[in-house]
């Protein structure tokens, strides 16, 4: 209920950088939380890749990798990456920093809530990491936490306190994400500057807004599933646990439905995929337009495509459950809906290409990552219609094909969005330019590396290489595919190593980078009208008034090749 920008710029270190109410500082906090998380998650994947090709190697921190250790690495890798990286950085990080500035608002609608949402998320991360250090170690039920494995304390070494911490962390994260979504929606609806109509909002704002709506509807459901799971684990209820024995002993539970967990989880889980990818879509639409010096091709179509992707995202959760023995009729319905998402996705891809077409393209590093995103989005997306068909999915579901699919589209594509956003907005956030040659080197290594890691996985999957297996040496036909695994691992080592170029560039540029001007990319949106870095209330007391759409590039008759949103209104030429 705190007045949005009634608070003065704080002076003390704690009020300014730790418990800050400023959306920009909170955005940076989210960003660095995600940065820490991504390196933890990446380290876990490194350990898994090492183990897959040298099964007997002793690894740092974990020693000898037993199958259950591998499963807990896999669980924690997935959970950290999905929640604390892909959900945190694009939405919590960049959304928090730039949504208010791009709509011409001085801050988020509820700054105190905004601060709480970050610290809640932070607490969730600490609780999750704590799972590594308790008796039994981290849980082994995968990031999807399928019951009854996740619901029974006795189900495995990590399923005691570790699993309790895991589900508590998820619940805490949900609450933080809901508070964030509340702020995003209220701010977007109620705090736009004069003249900033919904249809003049940059596509980034649209993407954050739609993502927030998705989060608002999805995280409540995950929270409910989490509450039920915690009750099953600790109060002896049987929501998800059927009559089941562990080591020949009856557990005392009966009558619950493991499928109920799957339904609740995936009702959240599928929209979550879009929560991760939509901000990247919005951002890349923005960047392709900025660096092609052309208006975005089909602005309205882009908005409606994102809205329909968001809407359809809630209709397709069953396609994660084709293996569960669901009725073929239900599976058919889910299958059709899923392939339906191909339509708005194709519209978006078409419009991205249309934006690039005959543009005067400036190949700066943000642009490279944006084009890389489109490439990965197509590559990862094209395997979607394969998996959307129940007959194919039943064969491919437990294989690396699925791993390749979702890593490309949800993981790497979204990470490319984060990279693009970092290179694009770094000058505004820190007042310095990032080193361009290093950025390009980082791009090419990561781009080629990502393909080298994930393309062979499609083949490995089609050859029935099973996922979640900690060793591929015991099964004859999988053993023959070991060279492929080796190739993937080596590609992964190189790609992981090249991320340190990024890390170095990030911190070195903050300190030693070339000073940035207020609008180094010659872009039109409101964040480039203000000082670099933006003052506490974003616009130094002068609320901007918006006269133009967000993508007015190469306007005939205009003095420059771009018209800022706050410039005097231009004649509609098209």
């Amino acid at each position, binding site marked *: 209920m705190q*007045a949005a920008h009634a608070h003065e710029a704080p002076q003390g270190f704690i009020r300014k950088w730790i418990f800050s109410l400023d959306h920009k500082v909170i955005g940076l906090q989210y960003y660095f939380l995600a940065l820490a998380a991504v390196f933890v998650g990446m380290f876990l994947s490194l350990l898994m890749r090492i183990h897959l090709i040298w099964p007997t190697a002793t690894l740092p921190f974990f020693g000898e990798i037993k199958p259950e250790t591998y499963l807990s690495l896999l669980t924690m890798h997935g959970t950290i990456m999905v929640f604390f990286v892909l959900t945190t950085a694009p939405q919590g990080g960049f959304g928090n920093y730039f949504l208010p500035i791009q709509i011409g608002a001085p801050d988020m*609608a509820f700054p105190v809530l905004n601060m709480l949402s970050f610290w809640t998320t932070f607490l969730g991360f600490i609780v999750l990491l704590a799972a590594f250090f308790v008796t039994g170690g981290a849980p082994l039920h995968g990031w999807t936490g399928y019951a009854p494995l996740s619901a029974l304390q006795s189900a495995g070494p990590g399923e005691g306190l570790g699993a309790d911490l895991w589900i508590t962390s998820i619940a805490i994260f949900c609450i933080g994400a809901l508070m964030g*979504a509340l702020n995003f929606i209220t701010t977007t609806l*109620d705090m*736009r500057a*004069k003249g*900033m109509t919904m249809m003049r909002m940059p596509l980034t704002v649209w993407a954050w807004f739609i993502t927030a709506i998705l989060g608002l509807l999805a995280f409540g459901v995950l929270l409910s599933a989490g509450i039920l799971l915690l009750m099953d684990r600790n109060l*002896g209820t049987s*929501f998800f646990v059927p009559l089941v024995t562990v080591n020949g002993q009856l557990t005392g539970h009966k*009558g619950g439905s493991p499928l109920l967990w799957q339904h609740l989880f995936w009702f959240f889980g599928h929209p979550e995929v879009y929560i991760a990818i939509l901000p990247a879509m919005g951002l890349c639409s923005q960047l392709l337009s900025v660096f092609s010096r052309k208006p975005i091709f089909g602005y309205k179509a882009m908005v409606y495509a994102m809205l329909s992707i968001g809407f359809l995202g809630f209709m397709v959760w069953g396609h994660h459950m084709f293996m569960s023995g669901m009725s073929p009729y239900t599976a058919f319905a889910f299958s059709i809906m899923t392939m339906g998402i191909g339509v708005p996705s194709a519209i978006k891809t078409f419009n991205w290409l249309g934006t690039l077409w005959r543009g005067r393209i400036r190949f700066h590093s943000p642009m490279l990552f944006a084009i890389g995103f489109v490439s990965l989005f197509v590559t990862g997306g094209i395997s979607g219609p394969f998996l959307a068909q129940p007959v194919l999915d039943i064969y491919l579901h437990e294989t690396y094909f699925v791993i390749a699919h979702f890593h490309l589209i949800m993981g790497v594509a979204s990470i490319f969005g984060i990279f693009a956003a970092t290179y694009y907005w770094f000058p505004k956030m820190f007042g310095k330019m990032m080193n361009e040659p290093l950025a390009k080197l980082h791009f090419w290594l990561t781009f080629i590396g990502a393909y080298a890691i994930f393309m062979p996985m499609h083949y490995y999957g089609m050859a029935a290489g099973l996922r979640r297996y900690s060793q591929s040496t015991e099964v004859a036909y999988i053993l023959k595919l070991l060279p492929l695994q080796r190739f993937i691992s080596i590609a992964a080592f190189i790609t992981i190593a090249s991320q340190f170029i990024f890390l170095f560039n990030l911190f070195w540029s903050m300190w030693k980078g070339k000073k940035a001007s207020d609008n180094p990319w010659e872009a039109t949106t409101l964040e480039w009208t203000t000082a670099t870095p933006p003052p506490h209330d974003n616009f130094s007391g002068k609320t901007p008034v918006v006269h133009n759409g967000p993508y007015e590039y190469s306007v005939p008759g205009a003095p420059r090749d771009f018209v800022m949103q706050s410039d005097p209104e231009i004649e509609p030429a098209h």
Partner: protein
Amino acid sequence: MASFTTTTTVDDPRISLGGGGILPPVLGGRGDDGSGSPNYTTRLRRARLGLIVAVTPILMLFVSFTSAYIVRQGLPTLDPQTNLLVKDWIPVKLPALLLVNTVVLLLSSLGMELARRQFRGEAALVSGGTASEVSSTEQNKMPWLGMTLVLGLLFLFGQWTAWKQLGASGFYVSSTASSSFVYLLTGTHAVHLMGGVLALLVASIAALFRRASARRSIVIDVTAWYWHFMAALWVYILCLLEFAR
């Protein structure tokens, strides 16, 4: 000390349809002039909008509980003795006390509405001038806010007693699937109501010190709508547990 009369125009956000209306601006533009802090109407509209958004995930929470409830009800389970699928859903006989609790909660909702109207008038006075004390109009007020708070706490105590009664009749959290759901639904509702109680407590303490402010009025307004939502939600939960058992 400034003295105001109650005839000051009440700036109710529901009336105006301009930038300061209850609906957020569609064509862009904030309700306030953008300089300094936003005015009372804007802040009230913003807070109410925030509440509508905040209520959505709570609704989703109970939607998922309801769907789980209905699914579980129709689910046969394996009987280990006979190896046959049997229905094991045992309907819970709800304690009659819940009806008394319902009346208490509805009454508290009524009190809350009266309190909301009381403070809204006062806030309009404040927003007309500075946010300083307005004590002259506060002397002979009905303590609706305190009443709501007491009734709310009474409801929570009643729920606690109802759980004790349920336990005494053999229905604990883990006894049967149906009783798990009874505790789940009533418990989650109680936790959410406690949030409302907490907000009221803060507002009442502020009222005790007679610090009239637009901010407190907004807290009370939003809490009131939340409180009504909680009352409606409770009626829904009771109907679900009673008629779909």
